[in-house]
């Protein structure tokens, strides 16, 4: 197993428990999705893996995070990146004042060899030809899709074993969503990079993922293979708002009325 979370708890500001006893596994070369509503704790789980809780005054208060069998909870984010974990943040967060090329160089701070960095950059530009075209512009002026590609390319510069993506489809046009998800599948398949994907767009995510976990209110509600989840009626209920099966809606509605308004 490449990554394993055992019973992880995350606390913000020493008071607010955001993640409660979560256990997750990502196999080597696997593509795993975390699904759930806004604020369910998905991003927090990613941050507990990449170590980015600290700037938000959060910490893993219990449980262990194992990467390649090694505990990493006490490591700083840069050390984890050097082990092969990279995190593409929600909202892309490219370095807006830097050009795409500089974005890539900045992410290669762990490689001493200049030639190696150049080779990696060439690779990225072939993987994302649109970035090569705009290599001289400031990254802040790229379109949303281009920025997302840059964010992924930047992450790949660290030569990760595990690529974590937080809402890569956020705010992108539908055709771009497809493109991004295709790229993610390709990276997973062709380069052998394991992917841990956080998505609200559950259906799109389940389409590409091997397996997935459903997170709600900081807990894992359900986990299993993508096929299994897809066929589970509760998943459809929770993530499609009952918009397809009106009889489900009626049942729930009735139940709800009884509970809420009695």
């Amino acid at each position, binding site marked *: 197993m490449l990554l394993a979370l055992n019973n992880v708890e995350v606390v913000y500001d020493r008071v607010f428990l955001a993640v409660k006893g979560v256990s997750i596994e990502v196999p080597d070369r696997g593509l795993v999705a975390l699904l759930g509503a806004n604020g369910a704790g998905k991003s927090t789980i990613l941050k507990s893996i990449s170590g980015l809780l600290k700037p938000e005054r959060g910490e893993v208060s219990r449980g262990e995070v194992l990467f390649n069998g090694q505990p990493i909870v006490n490591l700083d984010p840069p050390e984890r990146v050097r082990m092969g974990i990279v995190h593409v943040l929600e909202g892309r967060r490219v370095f807006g004042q830097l050009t795409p090329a500089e974005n890539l160089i900045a992410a290669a701070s762990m490689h001493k060899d200049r030639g190696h960095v150049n080779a990696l950059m060439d690779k990225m530009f072939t993987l994302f030809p649109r970035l090569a075209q705009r290599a001289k512009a400031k990254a802040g002026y790229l379109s949303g899709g281009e920025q997302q590609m840059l964010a992924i390319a930047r992450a790949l510069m660290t030569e990760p074993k595990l690529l974590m993506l937080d809402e890569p489809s956020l*705010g992108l046009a539908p055709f771009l969503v497809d493109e991004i998800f295709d790229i993610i599948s390709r990276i997973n398949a062709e380069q052998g990079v394991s992917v841990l994907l956080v998505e*609200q767009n559950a259906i799109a995510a389940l389409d590409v993922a091997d397996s997935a976990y459903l997170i709600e209110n900081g807990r894992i509600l359900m986990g299993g293979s993508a096929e299994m989840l897809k066929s589970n009626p509760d998943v459809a209920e929770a993530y*499609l708002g009952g918009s397809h099966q009106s009889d489900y*809606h009626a049942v729930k509605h009735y139940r709800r009325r009884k509970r809420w308004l009695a």
Partner: protein
Amino acid sequence: MSTSPTMMPTPQKPIVLTCHDIERSFGGLKALKGVSLNVHEGEIFGLVGPNGSGKTTLVNVVTGFYPPNQGTITLFGENITHIEPHQIARRGIARTFQNLALFKGMSVLDNILIGRHIHMHPSALGSFFYWWGAQKEELANRRIVEEIIEFMQLQDIRDEPVEAVPLGLQKRVELARALVAEPRFLILDEPMAGMNQEEKEYIARFILDAREERGVTILIIEHHMDVVTAICDRIVVLSYGEIIAEGEPRQAISQPQVIKAYIGERAAQRQMKGAAI
């Protein structure tokens, strides 16, 4: 209680809020492209759509934080398009925020008391002559606040520092702070984000009660479709700053363009193929 969650708006009911052809852009990005809608008195009006579709921007335009680049907003028949938020508050709007905007370092009670601001007469000199000035007003307003505290069932945590209270309760405190201003129009921005089923039900109940007992018109942004369909009278679906559907909730969200923009492209394709979900 006898409210039907599927109560349809009666056309005769007067209009509370009108947005007419609202446009707003940030830098080069057009967040709202000619949005128009009406909210009627006594309605629970839902605003749904994917992240970044302009829901919160619209609410910020209505409450005066981002003056629109184009279009007009009318509240209770009065044009409020370029009015400051604090003046809009005095015209009967209250709102909550997507990412909690409680005042840290203060107790729950004080947080709710601030909600009474527009009904009080704060004065530097009045504080100086507390016993002859402010005390009477403070006590009178305290009574009203206690009513809301009871209504929202916040008695236990009244004196706790607000940041020490669990997130679900903080949401409730924020709702109490909005309600205590006795608004005629209440805007809730994702009041149930990150809540579990039980908490969601609590909030939904408070929302319905607020409408029922206080006659408040409510505009709500929410991602939990079950809740939206259960309590909203009408909804509007936004995508890329445009209204792509509106009407009765269940009907509105089952339209193909909504599925495409909100539920997911591939989901729509699968649905067309008739695959089971």
